[in-house]
C-alpha cells in the first residue's frame, strides 16, 4: 500500500484549515482531513500538469471560505472563531460596560490565538492531541468513578503501591470493577461515528462532571507532599500529628505499613493483608509499647456498602519503630491496602497474642 506523501502546499493548506474544523467531532475532522488531503493532492497534480501555479487558495478558495462552504452545504453550523463570538455578543447584548469589557477581552484572545495558531509548533501540537483521545476516554472513566466514590463513599481514591486507584462505596475492588466497566462504555462512546449522542445540555453536564473530576485530582495532588526526610521530635511523638505537620508518607523503612496521605485531617494506617510486620506493635493499657514478637494481619472479610469508612469503628493506637530505632505512637484508624477497615477487636486480639 503506497503511502501518500503530501506536498508542502497541501500540508500548509490543511494546517491553516484545521482550526476552522474545531467544532466538528474528532472522527469527522480526521475523516474530512484525510479525504481532503487526497483531493488537494489531485488538484495540485492537475494544476502542475497544466502548467498552472499551484496556489490552493486560488484553486479551491481560502481555508476559511472552504470550511464555510462545506458547512453550509453539509447543513452544519460554521464557527469562524472568537471574532464571531465578539460580533454575536455585541449584537445580542447591545451596549454596556460588561459587554464592552467582554468584547475587548475576546478581541485580545482572538489576536493572541491567531498568533499562536500560526506557529508551526502549535499546529504540530494540535495535530498530535487527537492521538491522545483513547487515553482520555479511559481516564475520564476513572476520574468519574473517583468523583462518584468521593460523593457516595467518602473517599474516591486510594493507593496500591504508589498508584492511585478509584474507590466506590468504600471498596477499592468495587471501584476498580466499576471503573473498568465505565471505561468500556467511555471508549465505545468516544468511538461513536454517527449522530451525536448528547444534547448540548447533556454535553454541558458531562463537561461539569469532567471539571469536578479534574478538581478532585488537583486537590488530591495539592494534598500530597511526597516522601520527605522523617524528623522525629522525641519519645513517642504522635505519628498522626507528624503526618499533618510534616506531610511524610512512610512511617518506617518497610513497605508493609504506611499512612494514607490523601487525608491529612485523619490519617489512616494502611496495612498489607497477610503481611508480617516485625516492627509493628500495639500499645497496652499503660500506653507503653509491647516489645518483641511479630504480628500477622489477618485477611479480613469483604466489607462493602455505605458508609464504608470509620464511622462504626473506634480508633486504635499502635507503636511503630522508626528508622532511627525509636518508637513512635500512631493513633487512628487501620485499613487494609484494599481500603477495608481493620476492626479494633482485631487490634486487641493481636495485642493479646503478642502479650501472651
Amino acid at each position, binding site marked *: 500500500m*503506497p503511502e501518500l506523501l503530501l506536498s508542502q502546499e497541501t500540508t500548509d493548506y490543511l494546517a491553516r484549515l484545521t482550526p476552522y474544523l474545531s467544532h466538528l467531532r474528532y472522527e469527522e475532522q480526521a475523516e474530512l482531513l484525510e479525504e481532503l488531503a*487526497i483531493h488537494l493532492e*489531485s488538484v495540485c497534480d492537475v494544476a502542475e500538469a497544466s502548467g498552472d501555479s499551484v496556489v490552493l487558495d486560488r484553486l*479551491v*478558495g481560502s481555508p476559511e471560505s472552504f470550511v464555510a*462552504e462545506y*458547512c453550509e*452545504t*453539509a447543513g452544519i453550523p460554521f464557527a469562524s472563531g472568537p471574532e464571531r463570538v465578539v460580533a454575536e455578543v455585541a449584537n445580542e447584548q447591545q451596549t454596556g460596560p460588561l459587554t464592552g469589557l467582554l468584547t475587548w477581552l475576546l478581541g485580545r484572545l482572538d489576536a493572541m490565538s491567531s498568533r499562536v495558531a500560526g506557529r508551526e509548533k502549535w499546529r504540530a501540537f494540535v495535530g498530535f492531541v487527537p492521538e491522545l483521545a483513547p487515553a482520555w476516554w479511559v481516564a475520564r472513566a476513572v476520574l468519574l468513578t473517583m468523583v462518584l466514590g468521593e460523593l457516595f463513599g467518602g473517599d474516591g481514591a486510594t493507593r496500591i503501591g504508589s498508584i492511585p486507584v478509584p474507590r466506590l462505596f468504600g471498596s477499592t475492588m468495587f471501584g476498580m470493577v466499576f471503573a473498568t466497566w465505565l471505561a468500556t462504555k467511555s471508549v465505545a462512546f468516544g468511538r461513536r461515528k454517527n449522530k451525536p449522542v448528547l444534547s448540548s445540555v447533556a454535553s454541558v453536564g458531562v463537561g461539569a462532571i469532567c471539571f469536578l473530576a479534574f478538581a478532585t485530582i488537583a486537590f488530591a495532588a495539592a494534598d500530597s507532599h511526597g516522601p520527605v526526610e522523617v524528623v522525629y521530635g522525641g519519645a513517642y511523638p504522635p505519628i498522626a500529628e507528624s503526618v499533618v505537620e510534616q506531610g511524610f508518607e512512610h512511617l518506617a523503612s518497610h513497605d508493609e505499613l504506611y499512612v494514607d496521605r490523601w487525608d491529612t485531617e485523619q490519617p489512616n494506617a494502611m496495612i498489607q493483608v497477610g503481611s508480617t510486620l516485625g516492627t509493628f506493635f500495639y500499645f497496652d493499657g499503660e500506653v507503653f509499647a509491647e516489645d518483641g514478637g511479630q504480628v500477622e494481619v489477618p485477611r479480613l472479610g469483604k466489607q462493602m456498602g455505605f458508609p464504608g469508612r470509620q464511622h462504626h469503628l473506634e480508633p486504635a493506637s499502635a507503636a511503630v519503630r522508626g528508622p532511627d530505632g525509636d518508637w513512635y505512637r500512631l493513633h487512628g484508624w487501620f485499613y487494609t491496602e484494599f481500603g477495608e477497615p481493620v476492626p479494633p477487636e482485631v487490634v486487641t486480639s493481636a495485642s493479646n497474642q503478642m502479650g501472651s
Partner: protein
Amino acid sequence: MANDDLDNTQLLRGVLDLAVLSALTKSDGYGYEIVRRLRESGLEDIGDASVYGTLRRLYKAGALTSYVQPSEEGPHRKYYGLTALGREQYERSAKSWMRFRDTIDSLVGGR
C-alpha cells in the same frame, strides 16, 4: 458575465443534491472524481467544498454509502455509492426537476 455566474451559483444551490446523486447513478466514485464528473458535465462553477458538504449530508441522511477502496497506484480512496434510499431520492428529485424545467421552458418559450 458576472451576473450569469451569480445566477448559475444560485441555481446550483437548489439542485446540488440532484447533481451529486446523478454523478453517482452509473458508478461509485471518490470525492475528486465526483467533482471532475460534475465539471465535465458542464457545472464548471461547482465548488469543491460544496461537493464534499453535500456528500456528507447525503451520507448522514442514508442516501449514500461509503467504503475505502485500496489502490495499487496511490493512496486508498473513500468511495461513495448510492443506497436504495439514495436511488429513490434521485428518481423523485429527477422527476421534480423535469417538471420544474418543463414549466420554466413553457414560460420562457411562451414569451
